[in-house]
């Protein structure tokens, strides 16, 4: 028991030290070989304790708690970088522990940049990014007023169509810009998203009259009225200066080596993709032009062992400290 208490105190002291040095250094510290010895000793002591102390075997709550801790330790070590290295040496399982991958819209990727080292590895399948988008709490609106005074307001999003009536045809939002810029080459103007810092939100709206050629107009949030044309509809891009982000979404497809789509998922924060022994998380994105997404790739090795340990620990603690007392009270009342 003294040894158990000493190991608990040692872990407490190490955790306090880890809290002061920051997450990154703490991760390195707790994963170094010396600490691996400590984790192994802790797991072995727990197993030895279960075998040696009869009470731990006889009392189900205590058994669950201690066995749960063993599973958490074993699962954690098995899923660590050291555990992956051992699996590679012993069983030839060459799995990526963790890394990141950047995927451009409408292209597929299977290369993962490994965390901590300058090395890339390939996944046995590819991920295709169909679309990356950011959703905001505050919606933005496009307001259109036609020459006859008819006013309509719609949520501004790409693909949104507005029927302007038989006389005026229809309007469609074809592109949204965060930082609109225009370039002129050979006398031809082209609108583009400027990745450099700056804010010039704009919408590209295509207006198709009933009998005529479609024309594209640009509507600016910061310069209302700038794009108005004589006789054409008046448009206002209503967008608050600051918008809180509600979600980041990457629409993904998993493609196997034969080129078949084997899974599809729109991943967002708290909703990762799980495929082929890996979890894929929304990690970052192209904050300049929104053209690519960055996914975090994490191996699921050892994860379910840890989860089983969590369940056992929870059940054990609740059973031992709460439920068995409640049941024994009921029993005593009934007899």
């Amino acid at each position, binding site marked *: 028991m003294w040894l158990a208490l000493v190991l*608990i105190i040692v872990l407490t002291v190490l955790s306090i030290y880890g809290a002061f040095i*920051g997450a990154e250094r703490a991760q390195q510290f707790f994963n170094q070989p010396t600490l691996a010895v400590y984790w192994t000793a802790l797991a072995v002591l727990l197993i030895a304790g279960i075998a040696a102390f009869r009470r731990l075997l006889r009392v189900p709550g205590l058994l669950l708690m201690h066995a749960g801790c063993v599973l958490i330790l074993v699962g954690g070590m098995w899923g660590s970088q050291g555990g992956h290295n051992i699996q590679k040496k012993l069983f030839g399982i060459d799995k990526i522990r963790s890394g990141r991958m950047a995927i451009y819209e409408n292209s597929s990727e299977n290369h993962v940049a490994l965390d901590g080292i300058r090395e890339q590895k390939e996944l046995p399948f590819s991920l295709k990014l169909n679309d990356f988008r950011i959703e905001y709490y505050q919606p933005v609106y496009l307001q259109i007023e036609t020459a006859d005074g008819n006013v309509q307001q719609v949520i501004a999003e790409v693909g949104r169509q507005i029927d302007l009536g038989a006389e005026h045809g229809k309007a469609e939002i074809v592109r949204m810009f965060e930082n609109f810029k225009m370039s002129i080459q050979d006398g031809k103007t082209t609108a583009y998203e400027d990745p450099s810092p700056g804010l010039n939100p704009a919408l590209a709206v295509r207006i198709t009259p009933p009998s005529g050629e479609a024309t594209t107009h640009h509507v600016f949030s910061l310069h209302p009225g700038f794009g108005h044309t004589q006789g054409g509809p008046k448009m206002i891009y209503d967008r608050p200066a600051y918008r809180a982000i*509600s979600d980041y979404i990457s629409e993904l497809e998993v493609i196997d080596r034969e080129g078949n789509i084997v899974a599809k998922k729109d991943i967002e924060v708290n909703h990762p993709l799980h495929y082929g022994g890996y979890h894929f998380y929304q990690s970052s994105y192209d904050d300049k032009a929104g053209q690519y997404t960055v996914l975090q790739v994490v191996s699921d090795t050892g994860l379910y062992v840890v*989860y089983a340990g969590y369940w056992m620990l929870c059940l054990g*603690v609740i059973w031992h400290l709460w439920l068995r007392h409640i049941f024994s009270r009921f029993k005593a009342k009934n007899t």
Partner: protein
Amino acid sequence: MEIKYTIQGLLVYMTIAAYLLAFVTTILRRQKVGHIIYLIGFAIAVCSFGYRWYHVRHVPLQNLFEVFLCLGMIYPVSLFCRRALRVGGYAADMLIGAIVLFPAGFVFNAQPQQLPPALQCWLFTPHVAVYMFSYIFMAKATFQAICQLAGRNPKPGENLLGPEESTYRIICIGFPLLTLGLILGSYWGKLAWGDYWGWDPKELWSLVSWLVFLGYFHFRYMFGKKHPRINSLWAITGMAAIIITLLWVNLSRLFPGLHSYAT
């Protein structure tokens, strides 16, 4: 220190006033009146929490202001401890209620915030709520531990347990909640950040809190009530670790980490 001239602020101040009045009345041996005022204070605390919920349109457990607002609803815990566990410290609970509401009333910013993407998860409410419950229980346990160290025992006619036994009983209720909070947080970390354990300062301090109470159980199993003062010191150390986890980690620049949105 700032005074909140809002309905929210008014509700917080009314709760603090009710709790303090209930405390003074109970100390002056007007227990029944004290109990009624305590109950009124709790009703205002619930209104305050409900108002905040309506105002921000999500369960108000996002930042320290909201967390302390939640901690102010201490009455059910107080009642449970007295009725089910035969643990005293009823008047102290009123004071604890006023103390935990003080930062909400005068220190933390009440500006409503929208939930960032990481907090939009079904685990948000259970993880934080379970922790809040455990913290209230552990605060009560600490008060009993202090009583034990000070040599204060319940009066013979009160039919209450002694402070050492009371500390143990309350920790027995709070520890499973602490465990559940830690595990739910870990599971959520896996969903949101890709790792069930990120070695973040807040995670490490919450592990420290858990380990200290784990140490308490092991020590008490080894020696029973032979060293009541050391038992009490374990409990007080556990509470100190909880305070660091809840406050210091979020407020100090010493511990930058993933949980900074709670500031």
